[in-house]
Each structure stands twice: as structure tokens, then as C-alpha cells.
């Protein structure tokens, strides 16, 4: 195989950090190449340089033997490099065809483009109606829009940044079939993911980045996931340990919880029932947008429900608001870190006060106890290894993973009886994620009942005792995690969304 893209000595420094330091690697034609690394290892900066969004400080690239230095994404696309973004690159209020036209250099008239979209989408098993509004599409369908946008330009190199984080297992299979077909046709694929198992099944080669440097490369098929994780982190990763203990009494009982969605694009909760025992982790999976946020809101008290729909040790608490629930040790940490779990422009101390004032006694008679609040924030920072200069820093200034450790730690240290977390390790690197999962498991050892809502199935399999899936606002009956296969989980999650027609001709 000949090298399609050669990257030599790429370096990019931002004030205070070197994002990429002398990075070199090559991608062959038709190769599926994985880029592995923790958050902040420099993966995104590297692909942004390849895609022309960021100009390197030093180093050079060659594409098919010719020097390649794209000044802007337009130049990269013209040279045959296309990129599927993790987020931020679709326009909700525009149609599928308009979205695709925006990503092309010289789009044909819309009607002709719609024809092309239909034919290409059928060839690759990604059915899509060109005139639908992107805002109405499911996550899997949105990703198809992105992929099609790239495919219509006949790319030589396709960069994919965390493409599977929003897909069901079945959708992932379809995506992989598409990518394999593309690779067989000679398109090289640069694949970024945290999910090591996926990389092992899909990729031919992997380049591993740590703190901006290439530390290793390997054939991921010959390595175990644990070995890959070690290469990424540089040290042995502790898998969360759980102590086997008999489940306690039922703490939380939810019966026929219904809640119509307050906004037209939300999901209504329908007839949700489950019970939760002390010391147990209930994992709730499902594709994003199937009622996760709404369920968290109903359990945290943000969206009060019928009083007897939620029982805490037999006491009705369904109608209580968040503060009243905090007082009786029912705590929650929502998914969106900036703006929901934390106020971005307030300091960590202030953010600690916002949820812990009641349980930690950080306010008295309407006055704030600053020293106590600061001490509590420092305790969270200390216990959860939050990397920040101090509790006076604004929440916004922390990286996603560090802020996530802070918002989870803040709840964990309040000694909850019931803790509900949504996407506890979203966008968090492997070692921090392991730390967060361990903290949740440690809580259960003390008898706390934990509900983990997540889209990361591996995570749910790792830490939960029982698993249930949310699908269009309905919750499947929880099943013990042990012995559950991926296929069964996929079916619980409602199977593939509109994927029946997706038949890749092989």
C-alpha cells in the first residue's frame, strides 16, 4: 500500500500548552487508521491541522506525494480531504439538501443535488430524504447527513471524529459496513474514538497520542482493549472494583410516571415504573433524545410529578422540588455541564454552594458561610483530583473532564441516599472516567442507590447491576446486567431507528 497522507513533525502550540509536538505518521490508501488518545492528547488539534482549520507552527504534510498545506477547509476539501464532525456542523433550520450544499464547493442546483443524495445514499445504505429539516432528524440520521456531505465530494481521506457516540449498536454496525465499503474502494479513513472495542473491530492501524506526542503505533487487532488503554494513558488503568454485596431494601419506587414534554421538540415520559434498592446501580441506556433529560428532571425534582409517582422509602416525594429533595438526600447531576450542572461564569466555590448549601449547611439564616463553602469546594477538588489552580476559578475555565469530576464529586460528597447522574463520563478521558465510575461504585458500598443514565453501553455494562433502556419516553423493564448480550440491549433500546431499509449491498 502506498502512503496517501504523510504527516511529518507537525507542531502546534497554544499559549501555555503544546497541543502537538513533532507529530509524524502516515495513512495508506484504503486504510482505516485510528487516532487514539485521552482528552487533551492533541487529537482534535491534529485533525484540525489536516483539515485546514488550524495552521501548524512547524512541520509539513504531503498528500499523494505532493506538498499539502491547506490554508482553509475549502482547500482541504479541494484536495480530497473530508471531515465528519462530532458536533457543531449541521444547521437545524435548513433542509438536508441545503446542509449538504453548504459543505460542497460547487453544489449543483438543489433539485439535481437531491437526486445525487438519493442515489449515493442508497449505494452506501444510508437512506435519507433530501427535503427534510435537519432539526427533525434523529442523531443517527444527522450523522448520515454529515457522512453524505463528505461522500458526495469523492474524498480520498475521510476524517471521523467520535462518530459512534450517539448511535445504537445496530446503527454502529451499519456505519461500520459503510466505512468498510469505502475503505475497500480505496478511501482512507482517519478514525478518532474513545471506544477501544470499536477500534479493534474496525481499524487496521492505530497511532497513539499522549500529551501531544506520538507515543506508539500498533495494529489494534493484535492488542486487547486493556493494552490499548494502557498505551493511551501510560499507566495501568484500574478497572472499577465493585464489592459484591446483597442488595438492600427498596429505597426508591417509581410507579407509572407520566409527564408530557413542556416543549414541542422534547420527549414525553410515558408510564415509567421501576424500583431501586440500596447499594444498587441501575443503568439506563438509550439513544440521546429518548427522554433522558426529562427522566433526570423528573427524578431531581426540576419537573415535579404526581406526588405518589415517586416514593422514597414509602414516602411520596413526586411533587417536591429540587431543594426539598436535596434535603432528604435525593441528589442529581445533569448531563450538560455548562449551564445546567454548573453556572459557567461563577467560581467553583459558588457552584459548590449552589447545590450543597442545604446538605452541607453552607448557609444560615439567609447568609452565606464563605469559609465553609470554600472548604467544601476544596474538599471536592482534593478528593476528585480536579485540576484547577483553586476554588476561586470560574467553572468555565476548567476542561470538560475536570469540571465533570467537580460536578459529580460535589454530589457524591453530600452523602446522597439516591444519586441520579446523566452521562457522568461524557467527553471525559479514560482515567478520569475510571475515577468517576469508581466513586459511584464506592458510594453504593455505603448503601447509596445510584441511577446512571448514559449512552455509553460499555460504561453501563461495567458498573450497573441492572439495565433498562429508554425508548421514546418509555422505560423497558430492568434486567440484571450479568449475561446480557449486546444484541438483547439493542432490542431493548428499540432496535435500529429507521434502519430496516438500510441494506448495504456487499
Amino acid at each position: 500500500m502506498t502512503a496517501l497522507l504523510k504527516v511529518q513533525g507537525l507542531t502546534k502550540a497554544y499559549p501555555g500548552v503544546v497541543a502537538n509536538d513533532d507529530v509524524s505518521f502516515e495513512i495508506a490508501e484504503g486504510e482505516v487508521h485510528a487516532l487514539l488518545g485521552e482528552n487533551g492528547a492533541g487529537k482534535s488539534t491534529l485533525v484540525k491541522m489536516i483539515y485546514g482549520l488550524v495552521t501548524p507552527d512547524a512541520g509539513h504534510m504531503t498528500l499523494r506525494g505532493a506538498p499539502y498545506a491547506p490554508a482553509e477547509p475549502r482547500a482541504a476539501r479541494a484536495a480530497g480531504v473530508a471531515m465528519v464532525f462530532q458536533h457543531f456542523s449541521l444547521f437545524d433550520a435548513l433542509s438536508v439538501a441545503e446542509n449538504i450544499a453548504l459543505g460542497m464547493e460547487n453544489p449543483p442546483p438543489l433539485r439535481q443535488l437531491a437526486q445525487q443524495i438519493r442515489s449515493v445514499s442508497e449505494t452506501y445504505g444510508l437512506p435519507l430524504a433530501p427535503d427534510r429539516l435537519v432539526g427533525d432528524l434523529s442523531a443517527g440520521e444527522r450523522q448520515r447527513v454529515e457522512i453524505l456531505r463528505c461522500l458526495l465530494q469523492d474524498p480520498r481521506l475521510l476524517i471521523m471524529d467520535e462518530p459512534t457516540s450517539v448511535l445504537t449498536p445496530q446503527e454502529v454496525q451499519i456505519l461500520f459496513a459503510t466505512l468498510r465499503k469505502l475503505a475497500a474502494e480505496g478511501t482512507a479513513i482517519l478514525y478518532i474514538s474513545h471506544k477501544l472495542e470499536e477500534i479493534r473491530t474496525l481499524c487496521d492501524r492505530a497511532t497513539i497520542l499522549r500529551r501531544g506526542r506520538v507515543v506508539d503505533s500498533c495494529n489494534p487487532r493484535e492488542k486487547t482493549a486493556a493494552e490499548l488503554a494502557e498505551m493511551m494513558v501510560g499507566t495501568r488503568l484500574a478497572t472499577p472494583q465493585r464489592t459484591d454485596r446483597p442488595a438492600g431494601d427498596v429505597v426508591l419506587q417509581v410507579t407509572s410516571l407520566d409527564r408530557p414534554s413542556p416543549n414541542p421538540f422534547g420527549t414525553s415520559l410515558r408510564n415509567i415504573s421501576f424500583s431501586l434498592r440500596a447499594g444498587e446501580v441501575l443503568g439506563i441506556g438509550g439513544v440521546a433524545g429518548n427522554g433522558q433529560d426529562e427522566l433526570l428532571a423528573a427524578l431531581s425534582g426540576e419537573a415535579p410529578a404526581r406526588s405518589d409517582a415517586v416514593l422514597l422509602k414509602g414516602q411520596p416525594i413526586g411533587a417536591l422540588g429540587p431543594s426539598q429533595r436535596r434535603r432528604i438526600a435525593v441528589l442529581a447531576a445533569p448531563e450538560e455541564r455548562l449551564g445546567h450542572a454548573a453556572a459557567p461564569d461563577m467560581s467553583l466555590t459558588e457552584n459548590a454552594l449552589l447545590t450543597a448549601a442545604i446538605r452541607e449547611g453552607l448557609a444560615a439564616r439567609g447568609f452565606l458561610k464563605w469559609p465553609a463553602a470554600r472548604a467544601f469546594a476544596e474538599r471536592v477538588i482534593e478528593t476528585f483530583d480536579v485540576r484547577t489552580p483553586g476554588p476561586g476559578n470560574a467553572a468555565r475555565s476548567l476542561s470538560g473532564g475536570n469540571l465533570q469530576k467537580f460536578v459529580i464529586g460535589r454530589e457524591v460528597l453530600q452523602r446522597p441516599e439516591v444519586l441520579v447522574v446523566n452521562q457522568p463520563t461524557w467527553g471525559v478521558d479514560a482515567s478520569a472516567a475510571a475515577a468517576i465510575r469508581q466513586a459511584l461504585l464506592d458510594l453504593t458500598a455505603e448503601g447509596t442507590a445510584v441511577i446512571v443514565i448514559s449512552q455509553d453501553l460499555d460504561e453501563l455494562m461495567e458498573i450497573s447491576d441492572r439495565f433498562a433502556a429508554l425508548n421514546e419516553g418509555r422505560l423497558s423493564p430492568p434486567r440484571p446486567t450479568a449475561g446480557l448480550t449486546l444484541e438483547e440491549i439493542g432490542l431493548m433500546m428499540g432496535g435500529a431507528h429507521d434502519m430496516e431499509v438500510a441494506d448495504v449491498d456487499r
Partner: protein
Amino acid sequence: MDLSAINPVVLTASLMVAATPILLAALGELVVEKSGVLNLGVEGMMITGAICGFATAVETGSPTLGFLAAMAGGAALSMVFGVLTQFLMSNQVATGLALTLFGLGLSALLGQGYVGVKPPATDRLDLGPLADIPVLGRILFSHDLVVYVSLALVAGIWAVLRFTRAGLILRAVGENHDAAHALGYKVVRIRLMAIAFGGAMAGLGGAYLSLVRVPQWTEGMTAGAGWIALAIVVFASWRAGRVLLGAYLFGGVVVLQLNLQAAGVAVPVELLSASPYLVTILVLVVMSADRGRAALNAPACLGRVFHASS
């Protein structure tokens, strides 16, 4: 009271004249907002355009040069807003309000020597036999060029936004600036061009006020027209056709209430004077009551600061 003195033909014809300044300013603001920028300085740009156009027309004797100077003046003032919000990342609402205050003050200063001066007359466009058609000729074919330009702009802006690539890119920038940036579109440059266009349109609208509609210069003569233009854009749910409707509705009620006042209707003058504002907003609120659809048309990034950090 003598309602028979009100001639519907003359009323309709003068309605178009009364609505044109607001129509022009609102069309400009429509384009600006579609690119995701909220410029509250329309009033300031209008009145700056009004004095720039007035002064130039008086000095050169040419209304055409006056209109061009008004566009240049409005655009120049809008660039103050553009630089502050797009490069220095200032808050758009505060900057827009400041721009209005600045424009009112600046125009008063520039207009010192022009109070009570009579500007050269703006000729009506000679449409020959068309103007002789009874009723229609008086209503439709006896105006000056700017009225027809404003109508052409309604159709033009609608078509550009809907059918052209430039319009698609403009909408995309207003919808999601991060995504547009990731695809390689120059968000700041596109927005600056939109802001300049909005400024030029507001300036033209202002000059139409001082050169044709009134025609003379007095301090603060825009009297809230810029604010009405802003309101019309929102209530028209960012559609050019509805902006036309809103502006003409406003113009119509303005002319009607003046006529009613002249006819001596037994309604307090204050209420009559306020009626154009009330009626326009009321009608547009009713029309945009379908929230879901109106929201769909609203630029999602309206008023948000774009920082190309990633």
C-alpha cells in the same frame, strides 16, 4: 367632522411614501438579523443617513447624490458597530443602543446649519402613459425612484435568501456560526457585509424621510421609525414579504390618522398618534402567533457573540 375630505386614492398613494423609510430600514435589518447579528442602532443609522443625505443634496443640488451619501453615511456608522461587535466582541444589544444615541447626537451636530433649509426636490419617475391610468396611475405610477427600488428590494431580498448560494450561506451563518466556521465560511466577514448593507439601507430610509417625505431637516426627525423597523422585522418572522406588509400597514395607519385628525374625529389626538404603533404591532403579533413556525424562521445565533477559538 367631515370624512368625505379623505380621498382614498391620495391616501393610498401617500401611504406608500410614508411607509418607504421604514420598509427600507426594516429590509436592511432583516438581512443583518438573518446573518445572526442584532443591530439595535437602526434609529441612529437612519437619522445619520437623513442628515448626510440632506446636507449632500443641499450642497450639490442633486437628490441622487444625497441618497448615495446617505447610504454611505449609514454604512459608515454601521461599521462602528461592526468593528465593536465582530472584532472586539462587545455586547450587541448595548452597542446597538449606544449606536442609536451616538447617531442622534452626531446628526444633530452635522445638521446645525441646515435647519429650515429647503432641499432640492426629488423628481417623480416619469412613467408616461402609465401615470395617466385612472386611480391606479395615481396610486402606483406616480412615485419617485426610491419607492420602486424599495419594492424591488423586497422581491430581491426574498429571492436571494431563498434561491441563491449567497443567501444560503448568509442564513447558515445566522443559524449556526460554529458550524459555518467549521465548514470554512468567513463568519465575521459575511456578518460585516450584512451589517454594512443594513446600515446603507437604514441610511437610505433616513434620507427618504428628510428629502422626500417631510422634506426638511429637524433634529430627531426619525421619531422612532428605526425602532418600528426593528419591531417589524421580528413580528414579520424574518420574511421579506411580511416586512412589506408590516411597513405598509404602519404607513397606512399613519396617513389615515393624520387625515382623521384633519377631519376632526372625536378621538383624542394622542390615541390617534399612537394608533400606527399599536395597530402594526397587534397585527404582526397575531400573524406570528404560531410560535413553532416563527421560531423555525428565527436565526438561531441571533445576537450571540461569535469567537473563532476552536
